[in-house]
């Protein structure tokens, strides 16, 4: 029995004029017995000590893009050579401030996304909609539990987490105002704080949409959906969605299913909305990531385009106009200057778009989007009768006309993010009539369009490149496993021990954008190396859809070759950007489910646990966005190192430790009650690598953890050494640092390695027993129980930590 008191004045029995004031009444059917940890809803200060520990070890590195600061009117200021500006800030601190702003923007993106979605869903489904992520999930919201200290039971409960995130983002943003922080270390601590908040925003968004829209609930065997440029049946009207928030376009599926007409249309998506559409209905398809936006639009394939928010091209309207595709913008984050038609009747909107009276509209009512888009698509389709307007070039002459304009001035090369040698492709084509050199560029091209802006001859370079690889591009298709959302508790239970003990050599979390340094294939090659070696590979967002369109020689994508299970050799797609929270979440769940560490309001202990024990490594081969920056920074605070591709160096800041400074590498050992020197594992939290070879070796390297068992260390070192030999042609320089005893050594190489340790490093070896007598940083101890956190030490050791 329940009754509800609404907002307003009310009376109990006869007691008029009684005023009742109520804080928050939680419906506690079953009390959560986990005791509250030290830092529920932490502010900037609560975890600063933890951050400073990390930052002392993993020292911030700054690579300024601009030597100047223009942020206030006392400037511009020349900060080169670490000079100070008019406000007194120096270059490092100014860059740390920029990074903090970027992380605020990234965290704000997911948090505002979550807020929109949650408000909308509560309106539609009620705040009491239970959070049910399926029978295999008891730890439903590890980030929220750990950071906020609550156990959300309903949609409505999620608001408390979002309130906190918004408050903290605003606080940190405040600190970026001129004349606040003067320490780059404290800016980094703040960046980590909003990075952590980002994971709350993401978790709220994904949990809310999973429960309200009934997306897959941690299923391992979600369907495989078509992915790639060549996926759509061109004989149907094509509806294309682009963006990162499915709430605006989901009603399209709903409406068409209600009408029984879903099979009469093609619904395909670009970027994360594509992922989430496939989670709504596996009848939808994935075109590809942001680098496919201009490809798809200029191909003329879409009959209508629905945009929502984030990572959408800022010339979308112009691009659509150029090929006559009506645009429906839906999110107030990206209104695109369009007229707001949200209160128009459906037929008036459809007419305006089909007739071309309006090239695009802003329509914030998702239900109307659901009706308008199919009607527009069908009408536009009928108009062109399947003969779409534009396909890069109408004729071959047009293509060659463009190519022949090129004078090899190289303006394009010097503005291309990858310095692609378009000049050479053009020259080769001009000389030999062979398009293959241009076509090969398509495999690397971001289709960002800057080359066209720079070209003095106004050559449609993107179209030339796409047309030159036309066949291959149109045949690009593969399969993506639909995003499953969270990892099951049972899966965690199964793999917790092997992960923590090191027998599963690591978790590689391949997430982020598409700013790869190389052909797209490289991401597949890197990940397969780890899948074959039975690491767990988790992915999401753009990386997941890229994997989904890359086939091996046998024509199979990784999703087809490897199961969707969270276990050794599994390839898990969690879903869209916001599903990244399940990756941080699963690290927390290992601590909670396997090691019984309490999550509730207990962030530092959990992060410390993960840093020392969980061999998870983030990998973002092509990061470019602020979201990627804040997600990574959130992972870093949680003790998870992240390897980024070479463009990632442009984030300006990395966290790289100096292995050669022994004083930086220590832990309290709860078992021996000593402060001990430890191996530098991992020795960085954020590092940009140049090549796929380097990426592979670093990922294996950074999966090492101080708490590895002998067996685990042996396995991890085996992979590390093998991969180094394979890709670097030699044993890695630093491998002896990770050897605690002979049991850590890869079996097959044991003698050889002992020899090296003796001869090159002067270690003492007992050759009879093949034992190491002297040399390692520390001896192996099976009971080693490391922590960097004084409070954690005290909690488990029952005494103050040693000095």
């Amino acid at each position: 029995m329940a009754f509800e008191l609404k907002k307003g004045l009310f009376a109990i029995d006869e007691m008029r004029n009684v005023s009742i004031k109520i804080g928050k009444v939680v419906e506690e059917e079953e009390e959560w017995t986990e005791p509250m940890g030290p830092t529920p809803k932490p502010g900037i200060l609560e975890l600063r000590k933890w951050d400073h520990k990390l930052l002392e070890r993993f020292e911030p590195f700054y690579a300024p893009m601009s030597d100047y600061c223009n942020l206030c009117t006392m400037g511009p200021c020349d900060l080169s050579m670490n000079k100070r500006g008019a406000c007194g800030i120096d270059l490092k601190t100014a860059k740390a401030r920029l990074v903090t702003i970027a992380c605020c923007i990234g965290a704000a993106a997911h948090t505002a996304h979550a807020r929109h979605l949650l408000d909308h869903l509560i309106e539609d489904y009620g705040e009491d909609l239970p959070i049910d992520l399926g029978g295999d999930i008891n730890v439903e919201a590890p980030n929220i539990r750990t950071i906020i200290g609550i156990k959300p039971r309903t949609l409505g409960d999620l608001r408390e987490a979002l309130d906190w995130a918004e408050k903290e983002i605003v606080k940190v943003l405040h600190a970026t105002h001129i004349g606040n922080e003067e320490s780059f270390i404290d800016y980094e601590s703040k960046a980590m704080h909003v990075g952590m908040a980002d994971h709350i925003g993401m978790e709220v968004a994904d949990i809310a949409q999973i429960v309200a829209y009934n997306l897959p609930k941690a299923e391992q065997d979600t369907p495989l959906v078509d992915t790639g440029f060549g996926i759509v049946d061109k004989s149907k009207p094509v509806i294309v969605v682009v963006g990162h928030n499915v709430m605006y376009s989901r009603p399209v599926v709903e409406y068409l299913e209600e009408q029984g007409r879903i099979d009469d249309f093609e619904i395909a998506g670009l970027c994360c909305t594509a992922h989430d559409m496939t989670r709504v209905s596996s009848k939808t398809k994935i075109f590809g990531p942001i680098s496919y936006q201009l490809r798809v639009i200029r191909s003329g394939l879409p009959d209508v385009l629905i945009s929502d928010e984030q990572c959408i091209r800022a010339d979308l309207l112009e691009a659509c106009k150029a090929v006559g595709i009506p645009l429906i913008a839906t999110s107030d984050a990206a209104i695109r200057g369009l007229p707001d038609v949200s209160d128009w009747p459906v037929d008036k909107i459809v007419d305006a778009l089909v007739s071309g009276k309006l090239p695009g509209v802003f329509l914030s009512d998702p239900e109307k989007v659901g009706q308008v888009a199919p009607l527009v698509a069908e009408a536009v389709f009928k108009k062109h009768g399947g003969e779409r307007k534009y396909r890069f070039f109408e004729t071959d002459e047009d293509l060659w006309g463009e190519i022949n304009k090129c004078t090899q001035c190289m303006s394009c090369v010097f503005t291309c993010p990858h310095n692609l040698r378009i000049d050479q492709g053009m020259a080769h084509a001009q000389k030999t009539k062979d398009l293959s050199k241009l076509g090969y560029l398509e495999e690397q091209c971001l289709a960002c369009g800057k080359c066209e802006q720079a070209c003095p001859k106004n050559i449609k370079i993107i179209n030339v490149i796409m047309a030159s690889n036309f066949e291959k591009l149109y045949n690009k298709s593969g399969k993506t496993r639909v995003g499953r959302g969270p990892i099951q508790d049972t899966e965690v239970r199964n793999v917790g021990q092997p992960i923590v003990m090191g027998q599963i050599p690591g978790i590689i979390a391949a997430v982020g954008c598409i700013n790869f340094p190389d052909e797209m294939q490289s991401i597949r090659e890197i990940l397969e190396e780890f899948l074959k070696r039975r690491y767990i590979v988790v992915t999401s967002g753009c990386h997941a859809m890229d994997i989904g369109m890359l086939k091996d020689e046998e024509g199979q994508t990784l999703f087809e070759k490897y199961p969707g299970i969270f276990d050794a050799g599994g390839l898990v797609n969690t879903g869209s950007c916001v599903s990244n929270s399940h990756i941080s979440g699963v690290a927390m769940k290992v601590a909670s489910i396997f090691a019984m560490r309490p999550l509730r309001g207990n962030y530092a202990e959990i992060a410390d646990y993960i840093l020392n024990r969980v061999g998870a490594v983030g990998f973002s081969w092509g990061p470019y966005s602020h979201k990627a920056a804040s997600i990574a920074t959130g992972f870093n605070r949680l003790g998870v190192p992240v390897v980024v591709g070479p463009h990632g160096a442009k984030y300006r800041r990395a966290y790289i430790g100096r292995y050669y400074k022994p004083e930086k590498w220590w832990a309290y050992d709860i078992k021996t009650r000593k402060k001990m020197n430890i191996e530098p594992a991992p020795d960085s939290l954020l590092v940009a690598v140049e090549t796929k070879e380097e990426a592979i070796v670093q990922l294996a390297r950074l999966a090492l953890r101080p708490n590895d068992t002998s067996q685990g260390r042996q396995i991890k070192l085996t992979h590390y050494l093998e991969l180094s030999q394979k890709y670097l042609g030699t044993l890695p320089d630093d491998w002896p640092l990770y050897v605690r005893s002979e049991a850590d050594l890869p079996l097959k190489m044991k003698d050889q390695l002992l020899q090296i340790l003796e001869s090159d490093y002067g270690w003492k070896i007992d050759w009879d027993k093949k034992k190491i007598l002297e040399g390692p940083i520390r001896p192996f101890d099976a009971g080693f129980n490391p922590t960097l956190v004084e409070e954690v030490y005290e909690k488990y050791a029952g005494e103050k930590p040693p000095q």
Partner: protein
Amino acid sequence: MAVKKEDKYPAARRYQVADIQVSREATAVKPNVVVNLVKKAKHPVLVTGGQLLKDPKLVEFAVKFHEKGIPIIATGGSSKPLIEKGVKPQSAVFPLHYVTQFMLDEEWQGFDGKGSYDVVLYLGFLPYYLSRMLSALKHFSKITTISLDEFYQPHAKFSFTNLTANKEMHYQMLEEVVNNL
């Protein structure tokens, strides 16, 4: 063959039109300047990058540097072809990002323990990746950085001019450097 004709010497066009928000741009130098800088250096080193995997000529030049006694820090997987040619790099496993972080530390003794490097040559890098590292060293260290790549690097202290239109000239210039060391 040495580069001689002044009028054919290309302009120092930076690798990226937008990467020019700099207070001090690299001096575009000819091979003989590089030779002099290296000869005067106390502890020079050549850092090689991942583009050696794509251009065997660069590997050859790196080997020649090594033969002339310049130690090599190999990054990006460039160690593999170098080792195959008999070079033993001072380091193979650390990406340039690490190497740069180490170099920013004045107390670092180098991979060989002989003290900090004073003149650092760069060969075979993705230009935008190298640019950021050079920027860090420019602002926060006293190291003399010299880029030997085909793209002019504005954040270096010294850089080859832009040679993208003329691969042969690039090779000739590298040749001239190694021959005169």
